[in-house]
């Protein structure tokens, strides 16, 4: 067992690693958004830095121009843009509107961002030890570095509880701007989150009902089809037929996830062409960047949950199909960080892909889709899952 000091140090190290990964992936996502949507729209996206004809920027530009000759690698031209983007947002003038509610205006992006980051506390990236610190390390020498921060047994509850706080940031930001378009955007967002919280929870309940646990790590392992030992000592394995509600549940969850993260086709809160930019019309500089961070971190969280619950988590095949991969195959049969992140990145790509393809729902249509369509369907799915659980 670890001493309290060791626990604290370990937690700090893990949090630092996690937050840096998020903070790295989020700007990379903004870069990927440009490039993916650019490629889809038969153009190139970002390819270069601004800069003089001499010096560092020019060197990078030259390098990326050479990179352009190589397929696939040419996708990563203009990669330094993400750093420039962040720098720009940091250095930009921070404007607070004259009649805005100053305190709320400043606090709103923080409210938006903190829950988005807090969600990652219970997400399990790897169900076990990634590596062990060498014994030469002070304090933490010889301790394992696990693929998850905490392993609490109400992980899902925590996710749903924390995740629903983020909308307050949007509502308050829209309200505090003291401007009409942000107000409309904030109100839309409030209504939207309330409507979609229910089908989101219902679709996640499928996983809970099937596995019987709220622990993220156990959930993901069980739903991947791995035989598990219960507290009573029985060996349980997910029946194959449970893949059916899981499969549909995945789509429902992803749909609700789009709505929760305010992405197209449900980006009504910041509808570019209707409400100019919705709730963050009046925001600029770092405060705007926090909203962005929150949005992309939310996307990552949704992707990670979807990957962990529905897409087989750390194993290769989703929906419990992993059992057909014989254990004798060395790499593919084992859980891996690579599989998990591969699925997360694919889902993140899907966010961008959908954004480039679909139009936007109207406000009332979004509501009707949520209430009249998604809630009944997820309920039916839940009943099916419960039936399967009961019978098998």
């Amino acid at each position, binding site marked *: 067992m670890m001493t309290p000091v060791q626990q604290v140090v370990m937690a700090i190290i893990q949090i630092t690693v996690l937050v840096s990964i998020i903070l790295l992936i989020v700007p990379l996502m903004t870069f990927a958004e440009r490039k993916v949507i650019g490629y889809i729209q038969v153009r190139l996206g970002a390819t270069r830095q601004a800069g003089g004809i001499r010096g560092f920027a020019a060197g990078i530009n030259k390098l990326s121009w050479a990179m352009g000759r190589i397929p696939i690698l040419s996708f990563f031209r203009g990669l330094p843009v993400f750093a420039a983007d962040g720098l720009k947002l940091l250095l930009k003038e921070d404007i607070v509107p004259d009649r805005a509610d100053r305190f709320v205006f400043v606090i709103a992006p923080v409210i938006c961002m903190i829950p988005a980051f807090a969600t990652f506390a219970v997400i399990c990236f790897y169900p076990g030890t990634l590596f062990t610190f060498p014994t030469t390390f002070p304090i933490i020498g010889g301790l394992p570095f696990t693929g998850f921060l905490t392993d609490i047994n109400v992980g899902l509850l925590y996710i749903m509880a924390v995740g629903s706080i983020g909308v307050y940031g949007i509502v308050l930001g829209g309200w505090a701007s003291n401007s009409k378009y942000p107000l409309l955007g904030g109100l839309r967002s409030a209504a939207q989150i309330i409507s979609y919280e229910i089908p989101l929870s219902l679709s996640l309940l499928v996983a809970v009902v099937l596995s019987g646990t709220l622990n993220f790590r156990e959930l993901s392992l069980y739903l991947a089809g791995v035989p598990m030992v219960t507290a009573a000592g029985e060996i349980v394995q997910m029946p194959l037929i449970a893949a059916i509600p899981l499969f549909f549940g995945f789509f429902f969850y992803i749909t609700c996830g789009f709505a929760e993260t305010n992405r197209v086709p449900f980006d009504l809160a910041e*509808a570019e062409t209707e409400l100019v930019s919705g709730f963050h019309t009046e925001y600029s500089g770092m405060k705007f960047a926090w909203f962005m961070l929150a949005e992309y971190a939310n996307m990552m969280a949704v992707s990670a949950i979807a990957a962990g619950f529905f897409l087989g988590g750390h194993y290769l095949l989703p929906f419990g199909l992993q059992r057909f991969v014989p254990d004798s195959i060395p790499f593919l049969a084992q859980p891996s960080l690579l599989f998990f992140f591969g699925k997360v990145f694919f889902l993140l790509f899907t966010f961008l892909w959908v954004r480039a393809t679909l139009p936007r729902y109207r406000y009332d249509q979004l509501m009707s889709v949520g209430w009249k369509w998604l809630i009944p369907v997820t309920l039916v799915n839940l009943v099916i899952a419960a039936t399967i659980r009961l019978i098998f």
Partner: protein
Amino acid sequence: MFKNEELEINLGPQHPSTHGVLRVKLRLDGETIVKCTPIVGYLHRGVEKICENKTFFQGQVWTDRMDYVAAVSNNLGWAESVEKLFGIHVPRRAHYVRTMMTELNRISSHLLWLGTHALDIGAMTVFLYAFREREQILDCFESFCGARLTTTAFRIGGLREDIPPGFIKQVQAFQDRFLDCIDEYETLLTENRIWKRRTIGIAPINADECIAFGVTGPVLRAAGVKYDVRKAFPYAAYAEMNFEIPTRTEADTYARYLVRLEEFRQSHHIIQQCIDGLPEGNVMAKIPKVLKSEVNEIYHPIEAPKGELGYYLVGEKGGQNPYRFHVRGPSFVNLQALPQMTEGRLLADVIAAIGTLDVVLGEVDR
């Protein structure tokens, strides 16, 4: 028990989806529109007054700048109305080339409409796909007359020069791939459930209201009225062309979308006929270097991409410039119907309605 308060909100003049500097004053009850008042004039440059002080030759460059996405159509209207005022007989080859260019321009204008309309409703990618084809058309314009947007394409009495070598090949290359491109747009939009929900039944205006408000063009045709100036009062070489007037009866945004898509195909068909049947001969009528008009007044409408574009010209005896010049811009007249289409509906529908009316503020304000 509850206090109802209406919110007044200005959509524009700076707004991403008002397509220029249109300002719409909206009174909202929640997100429902109680009153909608379009306010125009932010781009008023006095084109009519300017043209009254320019010669008939010079006037053409101002028509480029009214409906700048359909400059060739405007040029055609100007050239034809001056020719009508003077009674100039234009060679047949010039008519064919004019028809071809105008139809290309109709496609390019509709492409811009399609792209921006889809973008307003949230579909980003159609915009770029539409601009890909539009770019090819603009390349054709560039090789024909040297400019891409403000074309000043035609001259009074015909064309400045004959078509350049290789031009037909260039247009044919566009023709060959354009039908596939229409299918791409349709894949992204026509059957898409979100697109259908956003457009079906939105911003309706029936045939009687259209006629009452003087609304013309695809909006009128989507209401089931088979009226097209190209058929009703043929000009240029349209009398010799074989094409259909696409109509729908639903009179909503989706119907207008389908009508315009069908117009793509009809324009494609007309261009093909122009290429195949392009007659030989000179392209410029013999006209004096100084045009001095007789006392006459004419109103010459053409079917611009947005609807009936009419030029009203009054000629003075011996005058080198028009005594009076008036433009009946289709966008200007069509925009009148906006309150009719949006009142009692939702805020997002205003965006769809402005998009589906296809207004260009350069023409509204002139």
